């Protein structure tokens, strides 16, 4: 009996050892290992024993089974993740894995369905379940207002999903941008006015009217109009809108501080070159129906109501 005991014990130890050895192998190859690799590594273990060991590991959730082409792969699953998915059924596990892969960009429900091949009702149930366990969360994407993407609960959504500082709850904050735009313009104007007053030669005057994006960003943060922290890059995008508005111009200078290739962006306020053109000072310039205006027609200059109002403005 003692001999038999020893043999059984031996076997048990062997089984534990074997499991540890397989886990070890999996850890060394994070991409996963094949059955063949295991049998090469442990040549004197009968297949029977190997199968039981792997089955045990799989049921304990320490390794997972993947399919790559025609081959089966075993991969190590770290203990924490394993703990999270503990007690999940197979489908839940699968959905969790798919969401995990998507990272902080998130994944759309339709894509989950295609990847997992689970029915919509079933999938909804699983997602709800996972959400209630605070393992995943749904984030609304700014790209399409009705599109919800799922990602792991502890992840910070990517900037493409949230839209950055300019979005709050997927809505673009046009008012916020407008206010910042006006404040930046005001700052540049003040700077120009200050430079105008200086009694120096024209070049120095021009140079004094420029301000860097750092200056503007400092001014804006001191104003305290923004609840969110605005980076210099954010301020630069605002300043760029001023350039597109024709209210400012941008120039590049070599930055003395850092490396010689580094360039600094300078901005200065501009005034329009010309007053509004003659055409726009008459009603015809803004007339919405000018294409249909004909002498003697239903819309004609002699009967024009816009012109009548304009003439009575005197």
């Amino acid at each position, binding site marked *: 009996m003692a001999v038999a005991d020893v043999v059984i014990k031996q076997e048990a130890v062997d089984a534990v050892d074997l499991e540890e050895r397989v886990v070890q192998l999996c850890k060394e190859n994070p991409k996963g290992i094949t059955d063949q690799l295991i049998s090469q590594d442990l040549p004197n273990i009968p297949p029977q024993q190997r199968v039981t060991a792997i089955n045990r590991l799989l049921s304990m959730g320490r390794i997972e089974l993947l399919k790559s082409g025609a081959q089966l792969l075993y991969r190590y699953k770290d203990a924490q993740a394993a703990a999270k998915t503990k007690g999940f059924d197979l489908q839940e596990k699968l959905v969790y894995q798919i969401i995990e892969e998507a990272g902080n960009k998130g994944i759309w429900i339709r894509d989950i369905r295609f990847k997992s091949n689970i029915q919509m009702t079933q999938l909804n149930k699983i997602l709800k379940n996972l959400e209630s366990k605070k393992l995943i969360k749904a984030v609304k994407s700014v790209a399409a207002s009705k599109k919800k993407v799922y990602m792991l609960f502890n992840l910070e959504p990517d900037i493409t999903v949230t839209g950055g500082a300019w979005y709050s709850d997927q809505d673009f904050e046009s008012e916020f941008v407008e206010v910042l735009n006006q404040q930046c313009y005001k700052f540049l104007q003040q700077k120009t006015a200050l430079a105008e007053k200086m009694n120096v*030669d*024209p070049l120095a005057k021009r140079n004094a009217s420029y301000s860097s994006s750092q200056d503007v960003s400092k001014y804006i943060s001191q104003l305290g109009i923004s609840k969110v922290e605005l980076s210099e890059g954010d301020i630069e995008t605002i300043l760029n809108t001023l350039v597109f508005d024709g209210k400012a111009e941008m120039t590049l200078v070599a930055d003395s501080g850092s490396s010689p290739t580094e360039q600094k962006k300078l901005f200065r306020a501009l005034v329009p070159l010309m007053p509004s053109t003659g*055409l726009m000072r008459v009603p015809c310039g803004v007339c919405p129906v000018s294409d249909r205006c004909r002498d003697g027609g239903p819309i004609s200059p002699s009967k024009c109501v816009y012109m009548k109002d304009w003439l009575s403005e005197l």
Partner: protein
Amino acid sequence: MSVQQKRLASLILKEHYGEVVEKVGCYLVAKGPRPLRDIIRETKLSRELVQKSLCCLIQHHFVSYEVNKKNVSLYNAWISNILLRARAPRYIYCAKCLFGYSGELIVDEILQHGSVEMSKVVTKVMSHLTEENIDFDESEVKSTFADLVMSHFLQRVRTETADNTSTEDDMYSLPPGLTFQGQGVKRKRSIDDDGHPTKRQKTEAKFHQEFIDEAIVSAVIKKVDKFAGDIVKAMLQLNELNRDPLSPTTQAVSLHEISQNLTIIPKMENAQVTQYLSLLSDEKENFVSKTGERGGGMYCINMQKCIDALCQNTVESVVQERFGSRCFRIFRLLLLKKHMEQKQIGELAMISSKDAKEFLYKLFAERFIAMQEIPRTSDYAPSRTFYLFSVELPQLSRMLIEKSYQALGNLMARRQTEVQENRRLVEKEERLEATINSLKAQHGEDTSAEAIEELRELIIPAEREQLKKLKLSLAKLEQSEIQVDETIFILSQYIAGN
């Protein structure tokens, strides 16, 4: 030549030369070169009337004639010359600014006649001046006239025979003997001499050059300051007479020449002028550029770039006024970055994608921006196609000049209706004034104020009010016509250069 241009030409002819001339002029504009016989038959006017109107049109250089192989005279109308008639107030004002009251009268006189002898102009101007009790010597008027010719604002009418032999100098030569007594020498405004397309290079659009210079100087003053404006003005004046209209830049002038010609007080130091010049050449628009180091530095003005910038500003101003500042941002963005996709536009302009879409399509629907499809597959499936938006400035300015012609025509038409509607009232007032004047003439200064007052009362207060309103409206319409013409001017300068 478009529908709007034709309409405007007809309105101009009708207003200044009457209905008969209008009929003949419009017929020629519509049909191209025609012999006299055809004109008579199709306009159903008498031979005499047609001949007289043709004479008037030729006198104003609106119509030219040539004899074809079959020895038939063909009459051809030049619509561009007719359209320039709308700019007459600006020419007169320009002459007034540069040459004073006598200059104004001379140009006005010549504009009224199209082409006329110098002696006649001088006599007319003199009689006008004495009528207004302004003391003016005849030789002063003559010297103003000579000045106008010397600075190429006026030029000689080319005679048919001396066509090919006449040099540019001949065009601006004064009557022989320098006594200014040229008999039978016809002169006319230089700008009107568009003549035959083959001879065009010889004409000097002096007034237009003056207007463009003015616009450039005012733009520079806005952009930098009045000192820089003065420098540019001096540069433009330095090559006023020998400018090549086809060259994109003016002839280079040296720093010394510029600083000698500055008018602003206090005089600037050379160093300061250099600084301003380098500032101007550093500008994004590149109004001024340096061409060499000779004579303290040679500088020239990039006329083409100036005109481009002015035109771009005009177009931008239209977009801003018509569509508001956010559309304007999108428009400028496209001007700066050329071709862009809808998504990029929204991101860069910081406009939410929904609004950006709306603004973009509004601009597109009104044809202010163009779209280019770039399919990724050959089936042009919308989902696999890039849609790139861009601004086509030459095309857009053509569209806007059309709109401006339409607006100008509308203003003129409206003015004519206003006059028409109040004709009875206007005539009544005119009759009344005439009676009062004749009363005054009969009785001298001692006409009883009572009688005049009594006559004046014939116009009741309501009518008086209406007359006042009418006069204000007419003035407003006329002023706007001149303003719209300014837009047309800038756009046409740009179109001519492209």
